[in-house]
């Protein structure tokens, strides 16, 4: 009987210890893209006494518990091999040239196919791969079909994020989306979980009221 009990105790201790180790080890591989991992200056939400688990930013790193599409490193294959390296880094196109609604609307939006065609009526590409990819865009445009882009930054429905507010506050796109100009294929570099949002909001002293985003 005693042996049985001690066996269970040892098992529990080992398992907890392992989980504990993981919790300590994971934050060490900290979120490189975000500079706002520290707990913010302004302590406490409006109703005090709600010490938040998210402050530790631990859960963010266990994307095994969450769906893949909401985890860092999510890099779905796109219907067109569009490269931000070519467009932004090489050809120096401003983000807002294509994502024009970001200063006007809560959504940054994917540009209309017409916007692509604005340049690609003339620019047909140099390499074979470029030529085939541009031809695909052209096909979509001529057929009047939308390009079925895979969403990279998937948010749950109960989050109302406003791009316009963040851009007008002087934030750059890269602060959340990472070094997009260097990405041949866009991937999710920030967890974009609530703790990650709140840590920045605390740091900047902006609203951390739930109703800012959840309604």
């Amino acid at each position, binding site marked *: 009987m005693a042996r049985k009990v001690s066996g269970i105790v040892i098992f529990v201790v080992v398992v907890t210890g392992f989980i504990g180790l993981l919790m300590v080890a994971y934050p060490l591989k900290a979120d490189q893209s975000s500079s706002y991992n520290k707990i913010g200056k302004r302590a406490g939400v*409006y*109703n005090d006494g*709600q010490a938040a688990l998210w402050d530790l930013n631990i859960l963010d790193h266990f994307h095994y518990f969450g*769906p*893949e*599409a*909401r985890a860092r490193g999510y890099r*779905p294959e796109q219907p067109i091999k569009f490269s931000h390296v070519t467009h932004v880094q090489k050809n120096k196109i401003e983000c807002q040239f294509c994502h024009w*609604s970001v200063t*006007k*609307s*809560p*959504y940054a*939006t*994917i*540009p*209309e*196919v*017409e*916007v692509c065609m604005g340049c690609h009526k003339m620019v047909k590409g140099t390499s074979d791969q470029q030529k085939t990819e541009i031809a695909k865009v052209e096909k*979509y*445009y001529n057929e*009047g*079909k*939308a*390009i*079925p*882009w*895979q*969403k990279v930054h*998937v948010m*749950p*429905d*109960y989050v*109302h994020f*406003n791009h*316009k*507010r963040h851009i*007008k506050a002087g934030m750059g796109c890269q602060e959340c989306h990472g070094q997009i100009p260097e990405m041949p294929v866009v991937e999710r570099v920030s967890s974009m979980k609530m703790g990650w949002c709140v840590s920045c909001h605390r740091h900047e002293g902006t609203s951390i*009221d*739930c*109703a*800012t985003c*959840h*309604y």
Partner: protein
Amino acid sequence: MESKLVKINKRRKAEKKEGISRRSFIKSLGAAGAAGIAGCADNPAQKILPFVKGDTTQIPGVAVWYSSTCKECSAGCGIQVRTREGRAVKIEGNRENPVNRGGLCALGQAALQSLYDPDRIREPLKKVSEGGREIFKPISWEDAFSEVAEALKEEGYKAFLAGELTGTVADLWDSWCQDHDIQQAVYDPMQPVDLARASELTFGHYGIPKYNFEKAEVIVSFGADFLETWISPVEYARGWAAGRKPGNVSRVIHIEPRLSLTAANADKWIRSKPGSETAVALAVLKLLVERGNGKNLSESVINRLKKLVSKVNIEEVAYVSGIKRSTVLLIADYLHQARSSLVLAGGPAASKERPLGLFVAVNFINMVLKNVGRTVDISRMRKPRTSVRKVSELVAAMDKAKVKTLLVYATNPAFSLPQSYNFRYAAKKVSKIISFASHMDETAKLADIILPAHHSLEEWGDAHPFNGVYGLTQPVMRPVFNTRSFGDMLITLSEKSGNKKAAYGAANFEEYLKNAWKKIHVTSGSAESFKSFWLKAVERGGYFEDLEKHIPVRVSVKDEAYTVVAESFKEPEHDHGLMLYAYPSVRSFDGRAANRPWLQELPDPVTKIVWDSWAEIHPETAGKAGIKNGDLVAVRNKYGDLKLAAYITENVDQGIVAVPLGQGHTEYGRYARLVKGGNVYDLLQTGEDSDGVVLLGSHVEIKRLPGRPKLVNTQGSDSQHGRGLARTAIVAATAASHSNGHNGGHHAHQEGHHEIKQMYVQREHPVYEWGMVVDLAACTGCSACVVACYAENNIAVVGKDVCWQGREMSWLRIDRYYEKKGEELRVSFQPMMCQHCNNAPCEPVCPVYATYHNEDGLNVMVYNRCVGTRYCSNNCTYKVRRYNWYEFKLPEPLNWQVNPDVTKRTAGVMEKCTFCIQRINEAKDIAKDQGRLVEDGEIQPACVQSCPTEALVFGNLKDPNSRVSRLAKSGRGYKVLDHHINTQPSVTYLEDLKWEIT
């Protein structure tokens, strides 16, 4: 013996036929289980589809508003339609339109559910016989047009039966019918045609006058339910409320056999015996003439009136009507003393076999009181074209198999024409029925070919309710289905039929409309070009003249007016048999709104019953027949029978059985068909001297049937149990001439001010403290706000069974309380939503911090934190929290209406009124862009916006100059239950004001 394989194959075939079998059901259960497990780690990968071509008017994520005109009834209210990414998501009233000035009724707001009705006709259909059954098969527009064009070319009796069309499309329809040699008939059961005929007799002009309620000190209504459905309820409710502002309190006396919404809001509701209103009106006329009113009239008119009323015996009238002699004298006294007044007749009480007597008598009263030209404006009349007599001539011709082709648009006679006309039977003898219906209603079902028309939100058009108001209707989105504009169809058909006469100088209806508006441009005398005039009209929602401008009109009384009244003396005395009292309700109107889940789940403003059709019976009458509340009763006469649940109430006369119109569809759609019990129209009789549908006077018998159907009533208790929830200040009659309504007030506001020990830390609100004021004196209980809330906040419609369990989801409900003081019945309406308490009982009991108080004074509900303990709901004093027991999926395309700015809640989550936080956040966002704070009046929650009487006011309580702050401090203000439990709500109610009429 069959082999196993053969057996399996057979079973599979059977499954295919039947849809689902036990085996495949179990299989699907297994699959669902697997999906459930997968659900825990489901991949929310989504696609993001951009537009192909850009649209300069659309920014994804930003709403685009279109001004238009509501076509749900003939009132012609202006609307503004909010669209997101090309889909209409909300309809609101248009402030620019002088008819409604911003408010909009429940029916108008629910037009969205008609646009996205999953049971709409999706493409042109043709009836074919297949295997002995007649079914509709889709055909191409090309084929449909050529088939109809062929029918038009053929010789023979052709007739067109249409609903009440307005504006340019009516003109086009007229000339189209003339050019194609087609007989016209108009049928809309809701048109007060006899009222218009009476105007012709007494004033010399056919039409429905424009009533100026705001200018009347005393309003006497003989059955006209002007706050719910009568003619133009939003316009009238606004005028009524303007007259009831403190300092300007008008008095309303309502005479009707049933407690309608107007009766409930009146200062005095006088129960009359059905059919006796004419006698009462004549008695009042006699008393007024005796008191010297009518000196403004010409000698001959007044002399004839005197002679006419000399036969009236007040005692006899009192006996016939069941109204005391003193009460009749009281009505006359009030009218005689008032500086301005308004007398009305309408509704089912006035819709009799011989209705003209009452209408003419009421017109005479208005004439002797000098109301014509002041509160009764006959220079701005709407001229209804409905004529039941013409329709019945047409049906008679159909019955004799004379009619070769019948065209039908925007009317549903197979449902709403009484069975006594025998439309359904006669329709079988017509060789070809062509329908332009957009919904598969009972009439469309009879058609041989259907060319589905657009919904009014998808097409160009205009509305011309009365002189000086020209509302424009514009398409707010691309058509949902493969339908066409009715005007376009007429133009195309005349081209196809090769009719030489029919040249309209326009390729489509939009062009035709613009040509017609060129004339309006000329008459407007505008100095600007037509292009800018047109663009302005499109932006504003129409062209509106100054309605204060006086248009002189000559009044000439026709001889027939006197004879009609004289004849009404010969009317048989009040009959003691049981009469059917069919009344229109804002929930289903005449039946056209029956397939809209919002309206079906909307509690009836007075009875508070949802999802049903019922029979209101007086306890005495019910007792005689051995009927108890909730029993199944048969209401029958020779034309048909209804099987309804009995609703026993003292608020109807003993001699009537009141049943709401518009339920009991056999077609029209999945939601309409859910309400069983039969169609009330079937039982109605034909009118001898009426040109409308006769709603009163059909004799019926009632009989108890076995069974007790579910009758779902959302009002838990009719009594307030002395808790002072909805308070009324009764202003004494003696104070009438001086008081501004404050005398009788409870001054309840002070109650909360004495020192109370505070258990919680008091809230601080640095910038905003959102709050609301509800003026009960202006609230009519019309329930427009309830529908607005459903539309704005994606509130689930749960259906009858779930409502029966008390699990309806409305965030805003209107409580209705009765209070009896002697003979007098006082009815209170109280909109009840989350009170956003500063000491909210729901907040401390939430174990997961899903509900809390924020800096702006809002009681916030965070759906994603909620784990569904329901503690908050149990602890809520006001019972305004709603729990999602189930998740409801809307069928395509009804889900297109969903507001993308509000999270759709899932099962297991609590929800409640948020003060439309999405609108608050939007306004804050705009204010921040402009570097300022949110201004007063900038935020209008959906309920506030929709209110026809501006009974609801929203704003920042932190700002002492805001409208809401000033109103909250008024002497009439109080907070519900605050004095008992110190919840400190952010919603202040202002006491109702009622005049004591003695």
